[in-house]
């Protein structure tokens, strides 16, 4: 889960990493009031869960409360890569002498934590990494290793910090590392770490992403008002609905509703539809062992989407059982009804029970099933994908 800059900074402050004395504001009036209490000039920083904010005009400088109010108005009308600006972090403008980069992340392929540092901090760090890799310094740690101060000092010196700054740098770098481990972060960046004209180091920006799967053991961010959220990206209303139901879901621009089993075939099935000339309307993951209720909700998302002309269903029962799958579909048909044609293949664990549930429900109300074509293991999944493309073409007139 990605954090806003101000949230990351609040957490940094808990670890005694120095941050500018800023304040969050949500309206031009709030911004004006905040600036009245700060030293001008100030920086107004749009809080959005994406990069490239600076280039998109999401950062403004103001020399008075009135000027800041005006600038805030402009920012709050801005969208950055589709993200509306709703919050502004107001900070005194720093006297920047030099910018550094410090980050911690996970090298998954090698099962290590990595501390990354560079004397060329600022917006173009990825370009630096690509074009001048010698300017990027990395240090690897085993998951159960501690980072000592001397390592931090070593890093600080390698990226060009002087003897005067190494004690501060030591505190900042070891704190960032401790923060990373303590809160199960996937990424924690200070970019830039600013050396001010006065010779102080300060974390001018934060970029933090936490491991969603470890949130359960960290009550503190929630206590600070940091809510659980997707990695990043603006959500469509349907994605919002899916999120509320805790279903991984993405709208795509096609017309075939994808009702797959696990994420693996969710991704692969998308390719298959393309191979056969169709375009999926969504990506979806049922998660392991979904309940009938959850499966019914997944179908609601598809049936109520006007872009969806046909539904491609696939269930290979593993941890998710075919009987539950059938129950979910039947529940959906009873409570909601299916308005689109659907082709489904069902096999795997408990498929006999699944088939029986379908047959019983069909006997009870054959009308509910008139839009559905059922297949078992005898039909290759590729044929089902082809059929879904055909159904969508017929229904959508394409």
């Amino acid at each position: 889960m990605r954090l806003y800059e101000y949230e990351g900074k609040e957490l940094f402050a808990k670890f005694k990493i120095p941050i500018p004395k800023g304040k969050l504001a949500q309206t031009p009036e709030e911004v004006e009031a905040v600036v009245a209490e700060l030293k001008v000039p100030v920086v107004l920083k749009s809080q959005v869960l994406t990069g490239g904010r600076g280039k998109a005009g999401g950062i403004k400088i103001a020399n008075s409360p009135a000027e800041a109010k005006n600038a805030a108005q402009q920012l709050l009308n801005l969208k950055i890569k589709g993200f509306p600006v709703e919050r502004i972090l107001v900070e005194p403008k720093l006297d920047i002498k030099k910018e550094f980069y410090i980050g911690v992340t996970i090298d998954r392929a090698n099962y290590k934590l990595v501390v990354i540092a560079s004397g060329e901090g600022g917006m173009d760090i990825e370009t630096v990494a690509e074009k001048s890799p010698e300017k990027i310094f990395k240090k690897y740690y085993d998951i159960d290793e501690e980072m000592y101060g001397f390592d931090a000092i070593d890093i600080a010196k390698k990226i060009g910090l002087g003897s005067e700054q190494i004690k501060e740098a030591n505190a900042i770098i070891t704190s960032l590392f401790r923060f990373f481990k303590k809160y199960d972060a996937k990424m924690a960046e200070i970019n830039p770490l600013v050396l001010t004209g006065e010779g102080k180091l300060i974390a001018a920006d934060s970029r933090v992403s936490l491991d969603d799967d470890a949130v359960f053991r960290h009550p503190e961010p929630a206590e600070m008002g940091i809510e659980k959220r997707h990695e990043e990206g603006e959500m469509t209303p349907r994605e919002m609905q899916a999120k509320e139901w805790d279903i991984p879901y993405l709208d795509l621009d096609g017309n075939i509703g994808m009702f797959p089993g696990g994420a693996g075939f969710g991704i692969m099935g998308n390719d298959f539809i393309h191979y056969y000339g169709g375009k999926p309307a969504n990506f979806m993951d049922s998660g392991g062992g979904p309940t009938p209720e959850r499966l019914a909700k997944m179908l609601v998302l598809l049936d109520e989407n006007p872009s969806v002309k046909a539904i491609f269903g696939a269930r290979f029962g593993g941890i998710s059982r075919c009987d539950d799958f059938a129950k979910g579909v039947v529940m959906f048909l009873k409570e909601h009804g299916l308005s689109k044609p659907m082709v489904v293949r069902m096999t795997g664990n408990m498929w006999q029970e699944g088939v029986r549930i379908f047959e019983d429900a069909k006997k009870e109300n054959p009308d509910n099933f008139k839009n559905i074509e059922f297949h078992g293991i005898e039909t290759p999944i590729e044929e089902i994908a082809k059929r879904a493309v055909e159904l969508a073409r017929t229904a959508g007139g394409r």
Partner: protein
Amino acid sequence: MAILVDKKSRVMVQGITGGAGKFHAKRMLEYGTNIVGGTSPGKGGTSVEGKPVFDTAFECVKETGADTSVIFLPAPFVKEAAIEAIRAGVKLVVVIPEHIPIQDMMLVRKEAVKHKVTVIGGNTAGIITPGECNIGIMPDIAFAPGRVGTVSRSGSITYYVADTLTRTGYGESTCVGLGGDPVLGSTFDEILWMFEEDEKTRAVVMTGEIGGVYEERAVDAIKKMKTPVIAMIGGIFAPPGKRMGHAGAIVEGKMGTAKEKLEILAAAGAHPAKTFLDIPEILKILKV
């Protein structure tokens, strides 16, 4: 012959008294998997499906001679269960649950490497050597004994690939689900090398997907292996994924698109497949 599991495997189910544990223990037993016992702290002395339940993996291994563990426990308990199984002396740990915290899995991996134990998962469907041993949640209907090994990050893809191999008469030597979590107990290359050593395995189908970092690690193995590898990567038409920020880009390089991954593997000598139906076609050409 097979890799990782066969009819001699002595399987312990960690979390055997839970809903999923009990359900799949029964299924695995019905398949013929040699389940020798299970664990559930506080329920030692009871039994499930006629198999003894122990409080600890140490006791289970000592009493039953278990050499393989499959974990059916909520994600927060997986770290300790896996490390316990490793220290108790099993040689293989299969982690079925998903959403294992990354740092937990890194610790488990470190412990596994130290003790020379193979950990598979988390978020894996398991491992099956058809006709001998089915560990995890894989539906037996898809599988038949045969001569092609499979390794995949996704459970459903494993089933579809096996389903195709079964229908076309090749069958499978062993099918391994690496797992779908971001950090995994084992990587493609490690499993490929096991297949290379296995006499029964005449070809390997490796299926990966967009994102992640483990497909790229397979390049060297594919180059050096004598056993042919068929590679299939999901997500060729997926919308571009999102990066976690600069640090990720610096460490992992440009995130491999599915297309790039497939190209890299093909360049190393793997035979690319687009759909499952391509697989038997390629096997025919390879005269497997």
